[in-house]
């Protein structure tokens, strides 16, 4: 009995070995000499951390985005003259302490040459601090907090996505054109909400000294009591509303607001609402006429974007979201940065990112040397409902470079150690 078992295992083992050898021969035979060098070369390992189990609706499209970019980079011969790019990815579950542990793991055990990723601002800040301590380049993909590149910036941290300040500045430009002066604001009660409202107020005051803010509401993130919040805003009789809520809070705010007539004859200026991640779940109830920042994925016809969208849809069978674009550009930028550095040396890579330029689905993107912020922009437009779903109309691309303070101004914002 035992003998049969053993011989069975041996047989299976031999079969597997044979199959593996056969595959190796097959693949070896089909690869041309030049590619053999690339396969044999040491891969360049990039550490990637994001909140895949914490906020999957956003981070899963993001992951598909960077997976696409990695395939394209490697298909085109990899980086640093033929070395394949390899991403070691980890899930931080939305917790900064977990992210810190994983960042250390990636640096010390997985021997990555660079860190990337993160969604939440506090997670991004925690990882940026680890990066500075270990002198490891870190490209923050999605966090919005201004602190990441300004008040708490450091030499090793760069950020891709347009910051809270930039997105607020884009909307202020539109808000200033409106024939209204009495504003009310509603924002989630945490750093992102507070800094978005603060920037909106101060930037609008520069363009429209006559603007007044008559009410503000700070619902707890994810727990908005929408009915009473809407009523409290209406009580102040504002002429326009600036909204920063998003996700589940936004859906409740929109429903209660439209049922209670808050948006009747009142323009609303709203951060991020045009992003497919937030617009999609609203379906036919997308609030028409709102002025938003976002990503009209179905309408951008530039060759770079069309190529990206087609490749993405072909591979994943679904349209890209903003996270997909962010993930894609993140890894594309890393490949470009490594090539520009010419080595995997941390200091060389950090220096290479300063002023790094690349073409992206959104157009040219440059990493500013002054504050390590990328000039990736966002689309500004109005919401409309067509065929039972929300779309952005009358949109334009707001290039991030036009919505950032000058190099001298940001130099004063960054700590001395970061320069």
């Amino acid at each position, binding site marked *: 009995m035992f003998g049969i078992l053993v011989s069975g295992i041996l047989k299976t083992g031999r079969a597997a070995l044979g199959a593996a050898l056969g595959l190796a021969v097959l693949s070896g035979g089909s690869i041309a000499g030049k590619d053999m060098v690339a396969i044999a070369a040491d891969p360049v390992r990039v550490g990637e951390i994001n909140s895949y189990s914490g906020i999957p609706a956003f981070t899963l499209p993001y992951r598909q985005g960077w997976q696409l970019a990695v395939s394209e980079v490697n298909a085109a011969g990899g980086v640093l003259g033929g070395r394949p790019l390899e991403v070691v990815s980890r899930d931080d*579950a939305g*917790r900064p302490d977990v992210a810190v542990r994983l960042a250390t793991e990636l640096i010390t055990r997985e021997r990555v040459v660079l860190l990337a990723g993160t969604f939440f601002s506090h997670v991004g*800040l925690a990882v940026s601090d680890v990066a500075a301590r270990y002198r490891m380049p870190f490209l923050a993909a999605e966090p919005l907090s201004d602190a990441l590149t300004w008040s708490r910036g450091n030499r090793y941290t760069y950020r891709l996505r347009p910051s809270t300040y930039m997105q607020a500045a884009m909307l202020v430009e539109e808000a200033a054109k409106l024939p209204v002066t009495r504003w009310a604001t509603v924002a989630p009660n945490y750093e992102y909400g507070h800094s978005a409202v603060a920037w909106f107020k101060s930037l609008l005051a520069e363009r429209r000294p006559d603007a007044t803010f008559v009410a503000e509401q700070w619902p707890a993130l994810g727990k908005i009591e929408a009915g009473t919040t809407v009523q409290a805003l209406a009580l102040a009789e504002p002429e326009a509303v600036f909204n920063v809520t998003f996700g589940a809070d936004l859906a409740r705010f929109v429903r209660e607001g439209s049922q209670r007539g808050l948006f009747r004859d009142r323009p609303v200026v709203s951060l991020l609402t045009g992003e497919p991640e937030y617009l999609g779940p609203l379906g036919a109830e997308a609030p028409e006429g709102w002025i938003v920042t976002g990503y009209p994925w179905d309408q951008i016809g530039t060759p770079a974007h069309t190529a990206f969208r087609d490749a993405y849809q072909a591979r994943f069978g679904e349209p890209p979201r903003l996270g997909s674009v962010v993930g894609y550009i993140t890894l594309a930028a890393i490949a470009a940065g490594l090539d520009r550095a010419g080595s995997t040396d941390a200091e060389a890579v950090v220096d290479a990112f300063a002023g790094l330029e690349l073409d992206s689905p959104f157009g040219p993107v440059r990493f500013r040397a002054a504050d390590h912020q990328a000039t990736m922009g966002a689309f500004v437009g109005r919401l409309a409902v067509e065929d039972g779903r929300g779309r952005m109309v009358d949109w334009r691309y707001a290039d991030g470079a036009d919505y950032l303070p000058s190099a001298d101004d940001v130099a004063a914002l960054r700590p001395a150690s970061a320069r």
Partner: protein
Amino acid sequence: MSVYLVQALSGVAAGSVLFLISVGLTLVFGLSRVVNFAHGSFVMVGGYLGYTLTEAFATGPLGFWAAIALSALAVGALGGLIERTLIRRLYGAPELLTLLATFGVGLILKDAARLVWGPDDLLGARAPGLGGSVAIVGTPFPTYDLVLCAIGPIVLALLWLLFHSTRFGLAVRAATEDREITAALGIDPARLFTGVFVLGATFAGLGGALQVPRQAITLDLDLAWIVEAFVVVVIGGFGSLPGAFLAAQLIGQVQAFGILIVPEITLVGVFALMAVVLVVRPRGLIGGVVVPVRAAAASPATRAPARAGAWQRLGTAAAVAGLAALPLVADPYRLIVVAEALILALFAAGLHLLVGIGGLVSFGHAAYFGLGAYGAALTVHHLGWSMTPALVAAPLAAAAGAALFGAVCVRRHGIYLAMLTLAFAQILWSAAFQWTALTGGDNGILGIWPDGWAAGPTGFYLLTLAVALTGLAVVRRIAFSPFGFALRAANEAPARAAALGLPIRALHWAAFVIAGGLAGLAGGLYAFAKGSVFPQVLSVAVSVQGLVIILLGGLQALSGPVIGAAVFHGLETEIMRATELWRLWLGALILILVLAGPGGVAGAAGALVRRWTGERERAAGADRS
């Protein structure tokens, strides 16, 4: 004026929903003393089922309401299944163990919902015929909210009838008052427990399904509701039906008018209200049942932990030597993970002194962990202190906080004490969150790294090991000191302890301060281990983690917190690296551990050892005879 009327009505609608969601929790707790952490998950599942069923059937009002009712019943059935297969096995076990089990169920249900419904928010259709609004003295008000305003009182009336004019209801009330007598009268408590659990889950499901026309259904619905449901139950008085209704409506109104005066109140409002109510009316608005939450069953099985035998001493020495030698073989990452487990063990050891030995259940031990972490971080960040004085400041800050809060908390008992600790922790959390000038708000404090000889992974690991071992030795010393025995006596026989002249309140207060100081020390170490501090260190999640660790490890053994920390942290880090469905696996493992060994890992190991040594002794005895 009409605006204020509408604001009040909006508050009533919110209060109605809150009542539906909380009523099951209060009924279940009142009858069976089960602290059901999965209650919020029932709300979430109710929401998802409501979404699916209304999308499928809701072409008209009939279909819509049928779909809502069906969702509620389905969640009730799920609750019945969980009660029958899991909770039932734990009624004889320490009551806190059901908390651990339902925590595991909550983890599993969250990932299960993600697998079934996907990660995206789902916004359902509005209720047919109720999608618009009606003018109330000129101000538009959603028709659906008007329906919600009515549903709350209707459910209250129906439940009142159920509990006052049916045989089942009378039996439940009797069993809530006195379980043993009711059982002695020939009423099967098991059937009552199942019935009430199903009832509670049904209303949680109803509350969730009724959210479909109001909000998107998300995977975060469980946590969004569970803590507030607890607050309602506490403010109303545990087990009190009208109390829950009154408390839910009070919270609805406080939120509705609070935001008109102080818009930032949203984070702290309900917890401040709970703290005030508990201080003024210790048993809630409508005096709920007095429930001593016993961490461990007061059965003959409870016994003073034996002093370590020769084998145990040898084992401990070997473990310490192994840990000290770890830097010789382990890479930096392994050292970091083990250091984190040691910090958690230190945190849990203090909590174990409070819960396991003192019998004082704290749902807010994160307060002291966080005070320590912030104490260390603030002295480094604002005062420029180096690591060593900051690590001294950490336990002092936490002990001071524990002395202050503990003085209020020890005047309460059982679950009310536990909820008061939670309230204080939440108030501290919102302070850390909103006092941006001091704490950096949710962007936290960065750059809190160890300095000097402890800067490297090995140095910091050895520092952590030395501090943690010292802390654990202190806990052990305290447990076997006269103070420790007095604390145990006050827990296991309060009346006799008081008759002997033991100052019970002072003992409890001292235990609070010691446990707080140890948690603070752990928090200080954690700040330096992570290099940054965020308000999350003060969150409910950290408090629950502490409880999970000591329950996993076992409350009866002093080694429990250490073993629990090692098992929990090891499982969590490894599973999280392996799969995004880590909640599912962690939850399943917790359930297996709970069912396999209600005494925790240390308890199970101890039982094995006793059986082995017992058999040996018996064998030896047989030889002699």
